[in-house]
């Protein structure tokens, strides 16, 4: 069985793993830039910009891949709905940043009917997700229950009202004041949705055949996609790019500050996750559950709660990735999650499924692959290339770059 995160093992090695990874990443980034410069006409200047784009894209994939890899590590389920959770997160951020639910369907200002319908629908949704969170996590005491319910209902309410932004905000204080609630709201809601999905659609199959939860996962993915399609239509929906277009110079190239922002924030989130899984009591429960569910239960680990927390974190990360998607690309679409999910899953497999560091590494590699395909003018084949990568990894190294050899369990 795969472990969510192997403890850093330095025995028999001259350097700690993090140092090796850091050096390898830097070398990889430089090499990628040089290769890009060699293959494209723009030279080193364009290549540097492209590398910055690849790092942003990779950060988004990495955040989504973490959700796949954690869930697979702990219950060995490919959560097909995870890509759509990411997509939904992007829609939540978009709805929050624009003028809220009441105004979105028509694209005009909010109408009274729209607001009433919105309040009723989203109020119901808020309580439903709040229930899912409480029930999934098995919160029994009154105060945590109230806090959990309030957090979810308030987040849903915030989305209902919205902040009515459409363009860039140059004032850094205002921007921070806007981005923090955007992340909080999207992450809280997606965490609650992911826990609710696990509670309703996966938990009943804890002891059933392996096929059953896979099939429901596909069903859930389809349901989420179709709900968004009915809600928002099939076309691209513009998402406000509130982050201003500021560029700084790096090696003669103009690099967007947003790239740096996404990379740093994503890495900070990942570092936080690594600390949580590696150092806290709940993280230890997750790791022990991933190693051996029964033994973990015997040691007093609450299995349901631990699995729910895994989904909670996965959902929150997908929510953050969804916010990045809107900020970076400026659009969201109902079928976004399908391709992103496939790419993120490939990232997780590439890095070694069940391995957190591997998922991050895989995410960046896939980001590089995709940007490279775009840079040489073959964007339309990028999906096919990623798929070929997946097949090749499964053929030659099913345990991934960082995974241990696991035989047929892979």
């Amino acid at each position, binding site marked *: 069985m795969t472990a969510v995160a192997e403890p850093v093992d330095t025995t028999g090695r001259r350097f700690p793993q993090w140092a090796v990874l850091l050096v390898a990443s830097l070398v990889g980034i430089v090499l990628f830039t040089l290769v890009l410069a060699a293959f494209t006409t723009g030279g080193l200047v364009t290549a540097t910009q492209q590398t910055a784009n690849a790092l942003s894209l990779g950060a988004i994939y990495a955040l989504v891949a973490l959700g796949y890899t954690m869930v697979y590590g702990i219950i060995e389920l490919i959560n097909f709905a995870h890509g759509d959770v990411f997509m939904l997160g992007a829609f939540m951020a978009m709805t929050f940043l624009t003028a809220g639910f009441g105004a979105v369907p028509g694209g005009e200002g909010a109408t009274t009917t729209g607001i009433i319908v919105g309040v009723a629908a989203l109020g119901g949704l808020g309580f439903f997700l709040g229930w899912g969170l409480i029930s999934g996590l098995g919160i029994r005491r009154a105060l945590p229950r109230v806090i959990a319910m309030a957090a979810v209902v308030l987040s849903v309410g915030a989305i209902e009202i919205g902040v009515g932004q459409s363009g860039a905000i140059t004032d850094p204080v205002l921007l921070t004041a806007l981005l923090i609630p955007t992340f909080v709201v999207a992450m809280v809601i997606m965490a609650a949705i992911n826990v609710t999905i696990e509670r309703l*659609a996966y938990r009943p199959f804890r002891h059933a055949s392996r096929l059953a939860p896979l099939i429901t996962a596909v069903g859930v993915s389809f349901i989420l996609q179709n709900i968004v399609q009915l809600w928002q239509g099939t076309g691209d929906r513009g998402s406000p790019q509130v982050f201003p277009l500021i560029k700084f110079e790096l090696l003669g190239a103009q690099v967007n500050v947003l790239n740096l922002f996404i990379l740093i924030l994503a890495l900070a989130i990942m570092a936080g996750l690594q600390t949580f899984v590696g150092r806290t009591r709940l993280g230890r429960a997750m790791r022990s559950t991933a190693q051996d569910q029964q033994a973990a239960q015997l040691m007093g680990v609450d299995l349901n709660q631990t699995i729910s927390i895994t989904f909670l974190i996965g959902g929150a990360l997908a929510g953050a990735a969804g916010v990045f998607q809107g900020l970076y690309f400026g659009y969201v679409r109902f079928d976004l999650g399908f391709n992103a999910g496939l790419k993120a899953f490939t990232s997780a497999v590439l890095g070694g499924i069940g391995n957190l560091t591997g998922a991050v590494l895989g995410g960046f590699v896939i980001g590089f692959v995709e940007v490279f395909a775009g840079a040489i003018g073959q964007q339309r084949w990028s999906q096919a290339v990623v798929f070929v990568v997946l097949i090749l990894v499964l053929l030659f190294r099913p345990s991934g770059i960082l995974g241990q050899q696991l035989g047929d369990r892979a």
Partner: protein
Amino acid sequence: MNPLALIGDLVRPALAPFRGHRSIAIVVGMALLTALLPFAVTVWPLSEVQGQKVWLDGFTNAGVFMLLAVGLNIVVGLAGLLDLGYAAFFAIGAYTYAYGASPFSGNDFPFLPMLVVGAIVAATFGVLLGAPTLRLRGDYLAIVTLGFGEIVPIVFLNAEPFTQGTNGIGGIYKPDLPLYGTFTLLNPWPFYLVMAAILTVVIILVYKLGDSRLGRAWMAIREDELAAAASGINTVTTKLLAFALGASTAGLAGVFNASKLTIVSPDQFLFTVSFTVLAMVVLGGMGNIWGVTLGAFILYTIQAVLLKQLNTTFENLSLPHPNFVQYQFLLFGLALVFMMILRPEGLFPSQRRKRELHAAEELGDEEVAMVGADELGNADPSTSEVEL
């Protein structure tokens, strides 16, 4: 399992229809249904919905999905492997026929041999895709097939010199059978009858396969791969055969569909097709051939007739209503999830599959009892009395 025995297993079912009584029963049953359906739809209220020709055309399209469901049932129902890109093989069969018989390619091969060719080409791709992934656990197959199902339309879309991209290959020749002549757009009868014949043959073959040594090997793998391997089953070859045979059925359906529509384009083979067929198999009852055939028929009818009819009915009564057709995939998704939760064996379960699905729960309860955590058990008194 040695190669000779495998070939024997594949050939025997083809000869067997002439021996078994059940095959005769299937032929008679299908013949009766084929004969009765065209008359049934001329009776009120079905005659009110649409004319007989439209009904027949609809039944033929339903037949394509029934064929797909029977094929996917080999993979998902019998062998227990989740194939999420089944439409890819459907597409490969369709494009094979488009190359075999259209002005675009300049070829004009006859329809019946092309059915076989389409099936073989699809099966070849099934083997190519399955070989690297079937060694791994089932979950990987699911995601790889999902990817494959996504890539195949992209390849057909992007390889414009060979496939005419978005426009697809048009003007595909309709079937031209030796004794009958060329099929036409106006007469749905020949398509209807040919589909009934194909379906009958495929159902008989799949029944025979299910009862053969190979079929038992599939079910053994589905229920416990480790135990199956320990009993001397070559799990990789056996799974690969399931995958290839499932793919070949889709190829067959693809050839038929291309010859009926006379055009193939990438957008006919999106994930929704794979998903719909999976929903049909799950709803009908994984592992039960009649179940999935009925499931396919029911879902297709809901999709193509009932939802449209609801729209018409509401319009006739001038009541405000949502566009019901838009909700079809949401309905399928919900049906899939609720079916898996409430009745995983499907509407028309196969006895063995039912026992297996519920036995797994019981085993779970035992494990739970062993470790002494009481809150995990989803003990349901009705499922603990399994008929043996």
